């Protein structure tokens, strides 16, 4: 009898090109996504060594990290960003790589555009020079972020030497309460495991709560896997996955579709498969979360208060918490709902998809953004923006006083002009609350789109369960 396998084992074995004692396995890469920030030095490396791109037909590039989100027909005021975008154009042109450029409707955040066109499919290996590549795991793909040296390696060989990761099962049981979202699930998981709990592992998310999430919600969960230290996180494909992919531009069709679905159905962890690590969370107990510190693990339920660093169990976590509070300008014991905000950012590869905007719109409909708040919505892609406009969401947002922007990463990392000023406090649907992430000195609180929308209207955090 064969040993029961995890989904990771199965995908891994289907992609090993070469295996040798004492060396990492050489894995074949099915899709390589490229963007302007982590690729220039990789293409330079190819030129210096006279190498070509092995499979431009398994590669796709877009511009997202530093594109302006204001009117793009105007000149880009930032010469360095302009240069980086230009360099990507030249590289794609020289090496024959398809590029979804700034005026292409398909342009957008790399982790949003690939799934929405059906390029991300179950069982694939997917890499990108970006740590949130874990997003694609929502489809049962093995997807992880790589550095620039590895980008060059994949460009040149379409493979990557990788040591087999350990596996970790994260099971979320029960049912989510009203107003509790996928964002809260992943924040609760990271609060529990810590920012390094997943290091060296690939996570498989399981359990009823995960099964009941939509594909877009599953992407939100997998997206933030890296914030818990794991490079990849995935969810076994099911009917929802197939429904989502059916009829997409890059999905198989006709008889091919039927055959692929049969293959995809096998991508589940067998009964009795062994994980190196397992945790179980009760979904019934998860509340809307708000981060109070400078790591994504530093979060509490919205009904709670800013924790006291003295309650930390180790000297180093106490010191880390003290530093975080100082940076965030917060006092221990303050009720989360007493924290006032200056900015709201709804967008990013975590929460910049159409369902996120729809849910934010339900809260905002007919309301006004608080006079003390500057709020913006940045759709994750051209298609998301178009869809939202067809549904009239943009009107709801604009009427309420939100800025409605062009697609890109925007204030998730502030490589373009969308940044926080020092000490500005932001309710953000993005994934990192690191010091200075959204602008030097800026203070980020990570929340769900619903919570961000509600905070925009009130000017401080509110428990979204009390208003919907």
């Amino acid at each position, binding site marked *: 009898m064969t040993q029961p396998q995890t989904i990771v084992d199965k995908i891994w074995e289907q992609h090993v*090109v*070469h295996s040798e004692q004492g060396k*990492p396995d*050489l894995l*074949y890469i*099915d*899709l390589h996504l490229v963007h302007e920030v*982590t690729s220039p*030095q990789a293409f*330079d490396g190819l030129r210096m*060594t006279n*190498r070509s791109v*092995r499979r*431009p*037909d398994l590669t796709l590039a877009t511009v997202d*990290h530093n594109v302006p989100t204001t009117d793009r027909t105007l000149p880009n005021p*930032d010469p*360095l*960003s302009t*240069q980086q975008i230009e360099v990507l154009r030249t590289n794609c042109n020289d090496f024959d790589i*398809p590029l979804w*450029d700034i*005026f*292409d*409707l*398909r342009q957008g955040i790399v982790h949003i555009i690939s799934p929405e066109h059906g*390029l991300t*499919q179950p069982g694939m290996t997917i890499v990108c*020079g970006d*740590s949130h590549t874990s997003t694609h795991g929502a489809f049962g793909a093995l997807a992880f*972020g*790589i*550095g*620039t040296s*590895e980008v060059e*390696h994949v460009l040149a*060989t*379409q*493979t990557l*030497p990788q040591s087999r990761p350990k596996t970790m099962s994260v099971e979320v049981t029960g049912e989510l309460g009203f107003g509790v979202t996928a964002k809260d699930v992943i924040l609760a998981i990271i609060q529990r495991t810590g*920012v*390094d709990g997943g*290091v060296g592992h690939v996570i498989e998310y399981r359990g009823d709560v995960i099964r009941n999430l939509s594909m877009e919600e599953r992407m939100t969960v997998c997206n933030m896997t890296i914030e818990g*230290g*794991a*490079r990849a996180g995935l969810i076994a494909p099911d009917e929802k996955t197939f429904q989502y992919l059916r009829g997409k531009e890059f999905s*198989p069709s006709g008889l*091919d579709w039927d055959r692929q679905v049969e*293959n995809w159905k096998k991508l589940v962890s067998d009964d009795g498969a062994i994980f190196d690590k397992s945790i179980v969370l009760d979904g019934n107990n998860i509340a809307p979360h708000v981060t109070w510190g400078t790591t994504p693990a530093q979060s509490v339920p919205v009904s709670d208060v800013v924790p006291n660093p003295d309650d930390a169990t180790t000297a180093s*976590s106490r*010191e*880390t918490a003290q530093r975080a509070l100082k940076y965030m300008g917060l006092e221990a014991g303050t009720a989360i709902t007493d924290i006032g905000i200056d900015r709201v950012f709804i967008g990013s590869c975590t929460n910049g998809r159409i369902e996120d905007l729809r849910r934010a719109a339900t809260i905002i409909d007919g309301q006004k953004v608080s006079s003390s708040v500057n709020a913006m919505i940045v759709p994750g892609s*051209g298609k998301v923006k178009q869809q939202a406009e067809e549904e009239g969401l943009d009107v709801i947002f604009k009427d309420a006083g939100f800025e409605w922007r062009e697609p890109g990463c925007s204030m998730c*990392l*502030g*490589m373009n002009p969308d940044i926080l000023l020092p000490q500005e406090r932001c309710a953000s649907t993005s994934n*990192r609350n*690191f010091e*200075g*992430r959204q602008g030097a000195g800026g203070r980020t609180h990570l929340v769900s789109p619903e919570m961000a929308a509600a905070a925009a209207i009130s000017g401080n955090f509110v428990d979204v369960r009390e208003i919907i």
Partner: protein
Amino acid sequence: MKEVKQVRGNAIPLNRADVDTDQIIPKQFLKRIERTGYGEFAFFDWRKDDDFITNRPQYQGAPIMLAQQNFGCGSSREHAVWALEDMGVEAIIAPSFGDIFRNNCSKVGLLTIQLDQDDVDYLMSRAEELPEGEIVINLENQTVMIGSDWSRQFKIDEFVKHRLLNGLDDIGITLANEEKISSFEEIRSIFLPSTDQAGQDNLKIN
């Protein structure tokens, strides 16, 4: 990649946990298209404090960095490794590292050494008390030594060690298996998506 056999010199005690790559090299410097010159921007925001550890004269040019758990967590930006390398750091010792960062270090030729928390704390306090104290790291023997009385063995992936000791380029090693890649491609499923119909500019806005 250059060879790494031994790293010898004093150490910068960066006594902080969860130092993310956004701190090591903030985003505004990721717009550069060059591979070098990032050193002066390392820890850009923290360095504004004159007393920040890398600003202290006694640690200038130290080839070793000591840090706390989960060093290099966060984004995949290899610029973080390039910045440390450009600052003169050749080896980092910590109780644990972010996965992608550690992997990037191994590609660039920066040695990452994982030691027990107690050992890191010990080295940290030695480096704080005696900034010029010399640490000797020997990759062949996998040892970290300080003075004549303290040494520890560290673990390292055998293949990473082999590559570092010989300064081997990953792409070169892989391309030696080019035939295997080609045969894999022949049997690869034809149902998998390809981007060659992705075309350019066929869906212009406006």
